[in-house]
């Protein structure tokens, strides 16, 4: 009787483990399929020229996406410059103040912003910036993307800082260190790894955004570093070239997908490594 019960338990345990392992493998399958498909189609166009040359007119073979890489880089910088300080400050505020009307409103705003479709943010940027400035520009695109980064940074900062034990803050305050210095020199450094991870993940999130760029950064076949001119971006290249009727352009779209996916993967991996390396033990 007893032995039989034990046998049943062992079998149940075994079945459970088998199911969990199978399902975890199944969860990886889509990622592997997508990645291998992109690499298979994109690898052939991935050459050094592809990364450093400008696109060529229809019909001509070759050409690259250097302008889109530069454009994506510009957009990320423009987005990060306001989003990182704003997001980190809001995150600090929220972690320091659990209750209160302002933190309630801020938290609500962050939540809503997080759920706002990217195309809506693009339209807002179009109405507020593009129409007023009278032109498409990297600036308007960058700001639209910055708005999308904001909630991710606020949330990760808040969550990271909340994990830091209060005893650390008390240790600093008990040494006669003023509150603002305690936050800047004790709490922030202790959470730096987590905050950096959040920033990188938010960059990874916006690097692939297309919708808000359609009517802000717009796209540009030429190279430009001018932030008040339209710029190209990797997702825009993919969108425009993949929907074109020319097979050479399709190849470029695959190549650009490869670059973009590689970039996003690298960002996520770096975020992981930073999170592990800079992990602070309390």
């Amino acid at each position, binding site marked *: 009787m007893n032995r039989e019960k034990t046998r049943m338990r062992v079998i149940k345990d075994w079945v459970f483990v088998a199911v969990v392992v199978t399902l975890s493998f199944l969860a990886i399958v889509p990622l592997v399929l997508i990645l291998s498909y992109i690499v298979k189609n994109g690898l052939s166009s991935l050459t050094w020229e592809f990364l450093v040359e400008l696109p060529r007119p229809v019909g001509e073979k070759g050409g690259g996406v250097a302008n889109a890489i530069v454009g994506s880089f510009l957009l990320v910088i423009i987005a990060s410059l306001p989003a990182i300080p704003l997001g980190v400050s809001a995150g600090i505020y929220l972690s320091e103040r659990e209750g209160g009307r302002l933190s309630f409103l801020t938290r609500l705003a962050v939540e809503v912003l997080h759920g706002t479709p990217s195309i809506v943010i693009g339209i807002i940027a179009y109405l507020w910036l593009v129409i007023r400035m009278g032109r498409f520009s990297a600036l308007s695109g960058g700001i639209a993307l910055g708005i999308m980064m904001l909630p991710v940074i606020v949330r990760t900062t808040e969550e990271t800082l909340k994990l830091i034990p209060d005893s650390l803050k*008390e*240790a*600093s*305050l*008990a*040494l*006669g260190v003023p509150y603002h210095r305690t936050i800047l*020199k*004790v709490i922030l450094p202790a959470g730096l790894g987590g905050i950096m991870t959040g920033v990188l993940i938010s960059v990874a999130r916006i690097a692939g955004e297309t919708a808000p760029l359609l009517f802000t950064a717009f796209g540009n076949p030429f190279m430009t570093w001018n932030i008040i001119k339209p710029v190209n971006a990797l997702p825009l290249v993919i969108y425009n070239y993949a929907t074109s009727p020319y097979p050479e352009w399709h190849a470029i779209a695959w190549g650009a997908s490869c670059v973009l996916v590689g970039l996003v993967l690298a960002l996520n991996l770096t975020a992981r490594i930073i999170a592990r390396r800079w992990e602070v033990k*309390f």
Partner: protein
Amino acid sequence: MGSKVLRTENLSAYFRDNRVVNRVSLSIPENMVTTIMGPSGCGKTTLIRCFNRIHELIPGARVEGRVFLRDEDVYATDPMIIRRRIGMVFQRPNPFPTMSIYDNVIAGYRLNGIKLGHGERDAMVEESLKKAALWDEVKDHLNRKGTFLSGGQQQRLCIARALAMNPDILLLDEPTSALDPKATARVEQLVEELKKTVTLILVTHNVAQAGRVSDFTAFLYLGELIEYGPTEQLHTAPKDTRTEEFLTGKFG
């Protein structure tokens, strides 16, 4: 009995409407060890957290009555100044996790933006670690993170960090409650040493510890100061029955 370094007058402490310390008046003698003992939840920790104005940092917390550091009204002075003169060691060791052992010791200066010369810094680190009886164990790896040390060593590092500020008083809030017996013995031995140069106020719920290390003992029960006097007298001939019951283990 020497001069009094800290004095409270009708000190009460609240969490919102909940009074946890009730009209405590007591005087702490200089360069002695005074223990505040009592059962868990009797307000011991809250009481000493009023001395260095840490209690008021908790939302909803409030203090009534007065505290004097020598002749200075603690609640009429800048709390930053008070906290630099009254050091504190907490229940759980809390070295700064991002800093090396070296930087942890002089954290009070670095975080306050007080500039020290290079030689001055080295001397202070060595002196403070020696006072905290940690120097021999860590002198060869001062650049390691403080959190790599064992719990007992971390607690002594926190003591060194507090001592580096040259405080008048060192508050020890159950400093051994997270330590094993051996590390506890080290800290207790250290307390003996330290009273030559600094006034110590030790919170404990451990009767034996109070008896071992302190010159004066205050017994706190339900936020009230029941009895206060020389440790030997309080332990051998308590005046209040509640003190006696606590000492003999009837409650607490």
